């Protein structure tokens, strides 16, 4: 009985903290329509601030609470709204999700910059861990009483706010009809800012409360994910109802603690189950949600992608293979290995191009499907031992099929629902996999065989060997990965140009019209999700094999998010966007950060500056991600447009080619270093369109190309109209049609 009571109280305490976090999330979602994936990161950042002022500066707890929860929390939320979120009204769901994901990553990077992750940061309980009372034989700490009291106070406070104050009534009204709110003399943006401030405060409070009851250790990644568990509670209330969210949070907290109390504690299973329970519940809630009504496209998105012809894609693919080979000759062995790793990330990135770029759906955990494939390949495809161990092709194929099947299973329940729910389902799956499978180091006995899913917490994945092709050699690996990337890319270009690709585009642009032409939307979404998961699986096996030894961290949720964000920043509708985004995720940041790290070690005087630069790279990419709402097509789009305009500037192109050849020979003969070559080549590639433009501007034999419009002539209305037209900014056109008839 006392066990039951103890765990019930612990469950209610955990539920209380979940409810505080989840109600903040529901609040911002309802007033601004943005599902804030960064909610957990805000909690994390606030908790680090709290640690900083209490532990490092030694402030008393009450002062720290006032400053951190009472001032910094709302300020953070209001700033987010003012700088980023208010600009997202009327953008596509995908853009909104990516921007909050970028905020999440940026906040985590920033926290790791400010508070060195290698040092321990612990947050103690209020009144200390020893302050407790005993009720009916059960020990209750003061901190736990504070959690319960805070949850009750917040529930009551929110109720009073929403029903007894005009501000709260106005906030509820802004959910229904922001325009009507304006007609009533209110500013809906003010209501939205208030809700962001309040939501952020609740997140920070939840963070400060939850860390001590889950061990006291403060880790940026872990805490961010811990608060994401509250998403499941929010789903109970269908992201709308705050009372139901509270009920969901309590169920979640109690279930987690009863699992601990009553399931056998041998092995890792129970502990893992407890950790992944919120995600299992989130997934279950998704399954039972009623289907969305099919509506017309609510938002006309601003993303515009040019579709390459298959022939052009094939030419570029061949050029890529050649360029990578030539470049690999310049690289040392370690460089080739890193490059190969980057190429495997680019293959995983292709899975996002087809899913998000072509079909408009989101997968927040592409690396999780890579992990599924890796586990399958490890168990069924490894021959030999030690250095002689090799992966066989059957293992890889089986792994790809497994990834596709698992992808189908994960996506199926969410396909009837809006894009946001598919994103949440993939997130839940990623977290579940990472906690249940990639930590499953116990032996299982099934059908007379004994096996361990993830022995020792890491897998040694040997290189692939198919007939005479042995990927043990670094250059062979790199070239195989590059050829695979090129083949898949050309295949996707063919897919996009065919009937299947057109159907995907149709579904993305208008699900209602697509269905009215006879398209079974669930079937089409399912097929494209499975294709995407299969590609992610293939890339994942190669990535694991390029890494050599993989563990849970290699497939982490933040890793998936970083990859997704970089691909969107580069241009998720483009195959080249996958290449650039994937390379940046696999090589770019790793190389840059380690380069700055090495520089910091080499030049002690400049160490702080170099270390700062290393962090700045990470935070900087996240900042670019936050700005993606302004340029949703990605930067590859701009570069391609730049080159497109240069087709008439042949002399410039030939000149650039010659310069490239000279540089390459210089690099090959060690006159200039590899890095110098890479940097000059990169700069030249970026500058080329600019040179081409000035060349064309001199000739001026044809009408001003779009890129030049307005550069050296005044803007006229006509020019503006042309720019809007050519840039595809005629979003309001269709809307206009409706208004005309309204």
């Amino acid at each position: 009985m006392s066990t039951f009571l103890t765990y019930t109280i612990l469950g209610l305490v955990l539920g209380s903290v979940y409810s505080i976090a989840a109600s903040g999330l529901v609040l911002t979602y309802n007033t601004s329509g943005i599902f804030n994936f960064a909610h957990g990161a805000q909690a994390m950042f606030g908790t680090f601030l709290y640690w900083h002022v209490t532990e490092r500066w030694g402030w008393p707890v009450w002062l720290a609470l006032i400053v951190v929860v009472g001032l910094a929390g709302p300020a953070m939320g209001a700033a987010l709204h003012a700088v980023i979120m208010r600009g997202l009204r009327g953008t596509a769901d995908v853009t909104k999700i990516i921007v909050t994901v970028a905020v999440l990553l940026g906040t985590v990077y920033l926290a790791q910059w400010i508070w060195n992750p290698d040092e321990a940061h612990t947050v103690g309980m209020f009144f200390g861990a020893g302050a407790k009372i005993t009720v009916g034989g059960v020990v209750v700490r003061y901190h736990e009483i504070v959690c319960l009291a805070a949850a009750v106070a917040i529930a009551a406070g929110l109720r009073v706010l929403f029903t007894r104050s005009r501000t709260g009534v106005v906030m509820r009204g802004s959910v229904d009809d922001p325009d009507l709110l304006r007609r009533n003399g209110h500013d809906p943006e003010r209501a939205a800012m208030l809700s962001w401030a309040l939501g952020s405060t609740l997140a920070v409070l939840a963070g400060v409360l939850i860390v001590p009851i889950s061990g006291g250790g403060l880790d940026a990644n872990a805490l961010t994910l811990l608060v994401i568990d509250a998403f499941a509670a929010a789903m109970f209330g269908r992201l709308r109802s705050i009372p139901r969210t509270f009920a969901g949070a309590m169920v979640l907290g109690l279930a987690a603690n009863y699992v601990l109390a009553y399931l056998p504690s041998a092995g890792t299973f129970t502990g893992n189950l407890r950790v992944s329970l919120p995600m299992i519940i989130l997934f279950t809630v998704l399954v039972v949600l009623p289907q969305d009504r099919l509506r017309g496209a609510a938002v006309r998105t601003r993303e515009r992608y040019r579709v390459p012809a298959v022939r052009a894609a094939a030419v570029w693919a061949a050029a890529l293979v050649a360029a990578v080979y030539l470049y690999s000759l310049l690289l040392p062995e370690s460089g080739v290995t890193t490059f190969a790793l980057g190429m495997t990330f680019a293959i995983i990135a292709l899975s996002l191009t087809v899913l998000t770029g072509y079909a408009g759906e989101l997968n927040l955990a592409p690396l999780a499907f890579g992990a599924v494939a890796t586990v399958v390949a490890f168990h069924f495809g490894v021959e030999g031992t030690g250095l002689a161990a090799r992966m066989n092709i059957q293992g890889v194929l089986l792994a790809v099929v497994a990834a596709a099947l698992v992808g189908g299973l994960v996506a199926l329940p969410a396909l009837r629902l809006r894009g946001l729910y598919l994103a949440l389902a993939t997130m839940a799956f990623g977290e579940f996999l990472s906690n249940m499978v990639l930590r499953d180091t116990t032996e299982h006995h099934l059908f007379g065989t004994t096996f361990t899913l993830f022995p020792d917490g890491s897998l040694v994945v040997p290189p692939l060997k198919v007939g005479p092709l042995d990927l043990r050699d670094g250059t062979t690996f790199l070239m195989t990965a590059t050829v695979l990337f090129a083949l898949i890319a050309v295949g996707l270009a063919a897919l996009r140009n065919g009937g299947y690709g057109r159907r995907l585009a149709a579904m993305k642009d208008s699900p209602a019209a697509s269905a009215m032409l006879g398209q079974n939307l669930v079937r089409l979404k399912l097929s494209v999700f499975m294709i995407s998961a299969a590609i992610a699986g293939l890339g994942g096996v190669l990535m694991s094999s390029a890494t050599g030894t993989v563990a849970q961290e290699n497939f982490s949720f933040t890793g998936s998010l970083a990859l997704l964000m970089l691909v969107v920043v580069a241009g998720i509708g483009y195959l080249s966007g996958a290449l650039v985004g994937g390379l940046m995720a696999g090589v770019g940041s790793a190389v840059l950060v380690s380069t700055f790290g090495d520089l910091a070690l080499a030049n002690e005087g400049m160490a702080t500056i170099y270390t700062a630069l290393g962090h700045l790279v990470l935070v900087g990419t996240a900042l670019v991600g936050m700005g993606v709402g302004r340029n949703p097509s990605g930067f590859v789009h701009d570069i391609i447009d730049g080159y497109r305009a240069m087709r008439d500037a042949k002399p410039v192109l030939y000149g650039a080619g010659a310069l490239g050849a000279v540089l390459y020979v210089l690099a090959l003969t060690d006159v200039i270093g590899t890095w110098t070559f890479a940097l000059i080549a990169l700069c030249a590639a970026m500058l080329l369109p600019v040179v081409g433009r000035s060349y064309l501007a001199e000739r001026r034999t044809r009408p001003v190309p779009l890129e030049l419009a307005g550069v050296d002539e005044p803007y006229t209305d006509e020019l503006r109209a042309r720019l809007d037209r050519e840039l595809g900014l005629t979003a309001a056109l269709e809307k206009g049609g409706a208004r005309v008839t309204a």
Partner: protein
Amino acid sequence: MAEEAAPLLELEGVRAGYGAIEVLHGVDLALRPGSLLALLGPNGGGKSTAMRVCAGLHPLAGGELRYAGRKVNGVSAQDAARLGVCSIPEGRGIFPNLTVRENLWAATGTGARLADLEEKAYARFPVLGERRHQLAGSMSGGEQQMLALSRALGTDPAVLLLDELSMGLAPMIVTKMYETVAELVQGGLSVLVAEQFARAVLPIADTAALMLNGRVVAAGPPAEIEDRLSSDYLGG
């Protein structure tokens, strides 16, 4: 009728549209103090867009919007409301997920007192008083429109903009609504009504304007406009 006060609300040569599509091609309208101007015409003629322009919810691409003689192009809707322009949109001008009382509370954004609003609304429409704690979205269409109109009763605006008051309502209720509007006009309020049911509003209108394809094609005394209606609506 010749010597009249300056218009409280005026559109002059107003052009507006959605993206590249222009919907209003130079609209002229003038609402004189204490009068009711009926803006008539079939759907798709641009009435709703003109009403949104007047309320500060839609940007002008050309021409002038004037309140009491002052040019206010680009005024925000919340500022328009605070300047005394009360606008009730077509369909339901209410928050369906708020109670009746909360709807009135939200209407105090222009500075009115909740107690005054409640008193006037419940006096005029007793059914609202009975349902003050009911969710507005669960009431009948007529009751919802009463609630929307209550905003004009209690907030003491200078100008009232009414878009398609009759939409989806039974004739009896439409009659009752326009009785209320007529009383408000007698009390000195200036009202601009966009309405496709011409006969519902013509009897209480001081002036009528007929809008077709984004232009005001005729304006004048209601009787004159009425003669044109049948041919312009049904194609003779």
